[in-house]
């Protein structure tokens, strides 16, 4: 049991540290993108994994964070990162406004409602000319001061993202062992049962959404800082939400490291398949990506975390 825990931890540590020892800029960029995706997937995991409320509307938080960053730059001339606190504040407000009515819904109905909210938000942004409308906004073209966080190398971004991810995972870890963690898992396992045992379900779902939304918004701000451009599709597009869900599901929703594992697998996969196949045979990248997701859904729907648990418990049980 001990050994089985030490292995993945050691592997993770090597992976986390490797970009700092690599001289390959593309590898470093991919590492930064992994960390960024892991932040939003882990943030989604709090409400979507632990509490079992499968949101397809988290792109709203991501978009709000990203737009906040570039709005403070375009309108006030501040460094984009200064928009991050505003994005988080806005995300808290959205959590309350959107969470209270949608939490009355259960299962697929909740997912559909969140999906609808995200679609609505994208339409609103497309028509909101103050924030660049359909064209979007760009960040500083060249660094005016170090606070603009424009680096040629992806390493500083990687370090920042990693720090944010560490804080988020630490909070999630604390939550997991606290009363809130138990409540959320109880809600995820069966809302009625939890309620009958006296769990204040709507209050705790809201707490989870506040935490989840805030970190997703922060991920959005960090994205805007690094990429330097945002438009309705890259901020509020449905793919943003889907990616969070798929990553968490692949690694194992409702587990601490599940979303991180999902990001570690999927982001390099999509970057590498684009690099290797993208130019030559167009579309092949999508095919590869799709096949892998199908395999996961067919053979380990509980995510890799589930698979790993089974594998370490009964070492020699292999089907056929």
């Amino acid at each position, binding site marked *: 049991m001990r050994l089985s825990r030490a292995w993945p931890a050691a*592997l993770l540590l*090597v*992976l986390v540290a*490797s970009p700092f*020892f*690599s*001289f*390959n*800029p*593309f*590898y470093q*960029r*991919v590492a930064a*993108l992994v960390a960024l995706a892991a932040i939003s997937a882990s943030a989604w995991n709090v409400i979507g994994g632990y509490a079992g409320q499968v949101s397809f509307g988290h792109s709203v938080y991501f978009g709000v964070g990203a737009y906040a960053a570039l709005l403070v730059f375009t309108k006030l001339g501040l460094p984009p990162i200064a928009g991050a606190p505003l994005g988080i504040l806005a995300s808290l407000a959205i959590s309350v406004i959107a969470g209270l009515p949608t939490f009355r819904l259960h299962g697929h109905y909740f997912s559909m409602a969140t999906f609808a909210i995200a679609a609505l938000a994208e339409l609103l942004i*497309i*028509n909101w000319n103050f924030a660049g*409308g*359909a*064209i*979007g906004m*760009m960040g500083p*073209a*060249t660094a005016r001061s170090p606070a603009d966080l*424009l680096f*040629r190398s*992806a390493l500083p971004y990687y370090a920042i993202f990693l720090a944010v991810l560490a804080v988020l995972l630490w909070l999630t870890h604390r939550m997991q062992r606290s009363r809130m963690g138990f409540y959320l898992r109880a809600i995820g396992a069966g809302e009625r049962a939890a309620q009958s045992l006296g769990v204040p379900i709507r209050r705790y779902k809201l707490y989870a959404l506040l935490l989840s939304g805030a970190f997703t918004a922060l991920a959005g701000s960090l*994205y805007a800082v690094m*990429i*330097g*451009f945002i*438009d*309705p599709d*890259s901020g509020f597009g449905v793919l943003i939400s889907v990616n969070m869900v798929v990553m968490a599901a692949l690694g194992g929703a409702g587990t601490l490291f599940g979303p991180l594992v999902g990001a570690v697998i999927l982001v*390099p*996969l999509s*970057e*590498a*398949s*684009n*690099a*290797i196949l*993208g*130019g*030559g045979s*167009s*579309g092949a*990248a*999508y095919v590869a990506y799709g096949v892998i997701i199908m395999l996961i859904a067919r053979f380990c729907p509980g995510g890799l975390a589930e698979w790993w648990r089974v594998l370490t418990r009964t070492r020699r049980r292999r089907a056929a």
Partner: protein
Amino acid sequence: MAITRRSVIALPVLAAMPVRAFAAEPVKIGYIEALTGNAAAAGQSIKQAAELATEIINNPHPELAPLTLATKTGGLTNLGGAKVEIAWADNQGSPAVAQSDALRLITQDHVVALTGAYQSSCTLTSSAVAERYGIPYLAGESAAANLTERGYKWFFRTTPYGPDFARLYLDFLAAVAKTGMATSKIAVVHENTDYGTSVADSMVQTAAARGIKVAQRIAYNANGTDVSPQVLELKNGKPDVVIFISYTSDSILYLKTMKTLGFRPPIVIGDDSGFSDPSFVKSVGPIAQGALNRSAFVPGKPDSLTYKINALFKKKTGRDMDDTTARSMQGFLVLCDAINRAGSTKPEAIRDALVKTDLPASALMINYKGVKFNAQGQNTLAYSLMIQLQGDRYVPVWPTEAASAKLELPFKGWS
């Protein structure tokens, strides 16, 4: 080089990516295009044109003189006949992917210059990487105005952009007004994402600068299935001119709805995209007779370069070359020409050569008046023609000296 201490770690896929140590004889150029996603059709067409361009550069083609780089020997003559090689990257229509592409092409494939990247948003993010690395970037087809307003040192653009198109339409309308036709009441109908919005913005601003107020501006969703409210709104406004900035299925829908509702304005202009799509001509050509359009590429007479290039492209693909593909191909040729004039693959030398670019119209495979960059890197001699749908194809009708057919007004439509 990219030999790192990460070889132990997972991700063998990444490690297996092509890493070329030393720039060998061939000159490698990074080409970022929308090879998959919404704009894949355009991206694939551009790819075929770029392959044609490399074929022309790398092999002897004296018959194509005075086209730049169409030589007796083939290859880049100032670089010892070095061949040009393209490293392709797919931007998938995503600004973030385009940025990854640029970084990968620069650091892994060691390209000497970049070109692309179709969507203006992708060109914006990928050229920011090139700027930080000090690698020349030439945009052949992206038309958003802000691209050349960033004060970048390494960014150049050969294509005409938003304000150029607006000026072309207004000049054309002014010329038509001299014949006694009313052209003062202009309606602009545009799809509501970045393409439609930005061109419509340029149109309204450029018109305002000339003291013309756009009478109606109607934004709509290109994925909608009914445009009768928009057509009725237009009908009530009784405009002299309607300018459509539309994609394919929506422009087809507009023509059909206009026929159903009996709305036939005297002048109809379609801004490239949808109106230029072969399926537009096929499905609504018979009811869109006399629709006007813009193009920077008109094949023209059989002895012209444009005609010869179009013939080669048609032989390769079975299609005529379209405006966007031609603009991209011309951009790529200008970049290769600059590398050849630089006689070096050093970024600084290529940039200097780009700055000094002064190509006459005769050296181009497109109908620009030439290629010469201003301080912002924008081609000041970029140019388009007005073309008109007559029968089953578009023919150049304005300006008169480039016209091969007579301008027929008012818009006939279905009669």
